[in-house]
């Protein structure tokens, strides 16, 4: 079960393009309109509003400027497609009854833009179980004389409408030195600057959290906003294929969490 957030980053707007057509012609039969809903956490509850409908084969882009007026400041806007309306208010995150595919997964375009340009990736954010761990080896830090800013955008959604706080630890994979700690909260796109950690283009950083999972996006921009880059790391299980991939992921997490001692 997935949502499509509208991303945020310093000095950039966010946009999300939703599509009401199947990404393939063999898994689902997409012929009807679907409801576009906006869901956000506030006052200890989930709130959902209908933003309209998308007809079959229709697509529409939603901009952070227009959507952020509809929800409390600082809350992350979660968009979804569904065949029946979501409840206006709920204690647990509502589950959109929608069409799902696997090859490929039903996605949207999640992007960031400046006055001059934009960048995007095809994605979706799952609702994570509470308390699971996170490990990422992001090789995206860019250093340039012209001045580049680098950020991690850690996206989390959980079922409870709260902002549970956790600690993110960032290490140097080579010598296991702790480069810094930052806080992150659940149900948020957590923006973490990577520019004050002493990184360069040789250091492989390790980002970890023992009790919250994220889709980790990495965003770089030139200071003038003329050039942007956005991509995510694969989960550790993607370092192998076939066999017991999640056994491999478990091994990696156990190994690295035992080595990364503050």
């Amino acid at each position, binding site marked *: 079960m997935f949502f499509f957030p509208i991303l945020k980053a310093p000095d950039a707007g966010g946009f999300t393009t939703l599509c009401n057509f199947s990404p393939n012609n*063999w898994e689902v039969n997409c012929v009807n309109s679907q409801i576009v809903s906006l869901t956000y956490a506030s006052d200890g509850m989930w709130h959902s509003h209908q933003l309209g409908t998308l007809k079959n084969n229709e697509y529409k882009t939603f901009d952070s400027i227009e959507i952020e007026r509809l929800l409390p400041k600082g809350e992350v806007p979660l968009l979804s497609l569904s065949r029946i309306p979501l409840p206006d208010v709920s204690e647990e995150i509502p589950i959109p009854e929608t069409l799902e595919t696997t090859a490929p997964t039903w996605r949207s375009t999640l992007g960031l833009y400046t006055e001059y340009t934009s960048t995007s990736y095809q994605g979706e954010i799952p609702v994570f179980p509470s308390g699971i761990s996170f490990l990422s080896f992001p090789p995206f830090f860019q250093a340039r004389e012209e001045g580049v800013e680098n950020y991690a955008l850690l996206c989390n959604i959980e079922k409870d409408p709260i902002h549970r706080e956790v600690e993110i630890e960032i290490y140097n994979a080579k010598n296991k030195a702790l480069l810094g700690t930052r806080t992150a909260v659940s149900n948020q796109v957590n923006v973490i600057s990577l520019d004050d950690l002493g990184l360069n283009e040789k250091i492989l950083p390790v980002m970890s959290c023992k009790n919250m999972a994220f889709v980790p996006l990495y965003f770089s921009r030139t200071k003038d906003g003329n050039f942007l880059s956005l*991509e995510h790391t694969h989960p550790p299980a993607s370092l192998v294929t076939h066999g017991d991939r999640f056994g491999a992921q478990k091994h990696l997490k156990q190994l690295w969490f035992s080595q990364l001692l503050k």
Partner: protein
Amino acid sequence: MNIIKRITRARWTYKQSLTKKPKELNSRISDLFIWRDSQEWVTFFELTDISALFMQEKQDIHYADIVLFSSVGEKILTKKVKLSQNQRMVINLSEILLQADNSGEFGTFAVFHSYIPEVVSNLNSFIAERGYLSYTYKASPLRSYVHGNLDAISKYNDEYSMLGGSGILKREYALQYELNNKSNYDIVVVNPSDKVKKITCKVVDSDNMLINQEIVKVKPRGVGIFPVSFEYQKSARIIITSRLVMARPLVFRTNDIFFDACHG
């Protein structure tokens, strides 16, 4: 699922896996990444010793073979690279391509790691390079990153095997991405199968009316590029048709002043 639905679905799934499993457990697996090398484009690869990530102790030196193929899937050259344990190496593919004559402006490459950790073999798994590459366009000061997306090719001893699945029926990959008339696009599709594939790229407008259609025959390990631009419609989308189980494209978006690259 009722019996009719099962039979209907089986036409698309029976013996048509997304990726095949190599016969030999000690095979190395890689995506087929796309390189571009021209006056405008430079390609980089983030090479890390992914085998070393599975091991605690300091290891012997590991290596990786970067194998470059032309746009028609012919091997151009192999570059053996000594890996740095738990460090990044930003490899400039365009510098490696200087060693080849007439390699063209685009093609594919694979990265095979020399060492297979015992823990991976014991799990009946294979080390798979699906990592991260980046591009610059017109000497842009920032690289645009994209990740790999498919287990496409394996190497055992000096033999390559194509792992991409294909079937009898034509499949559509309808990219859930809006193209606009302010940009130019290159839609790029790799053939990870062991047979020549006919790949069709349709451009349709927001009313689902056909704007343009191109067909390219792509050899195994090769790559097809579909340039897309349009003037009179405000936006459009693309539908790729082939017998590949998943013809997931790479999208390059450019105009005079900016560019972006993303996976479909």
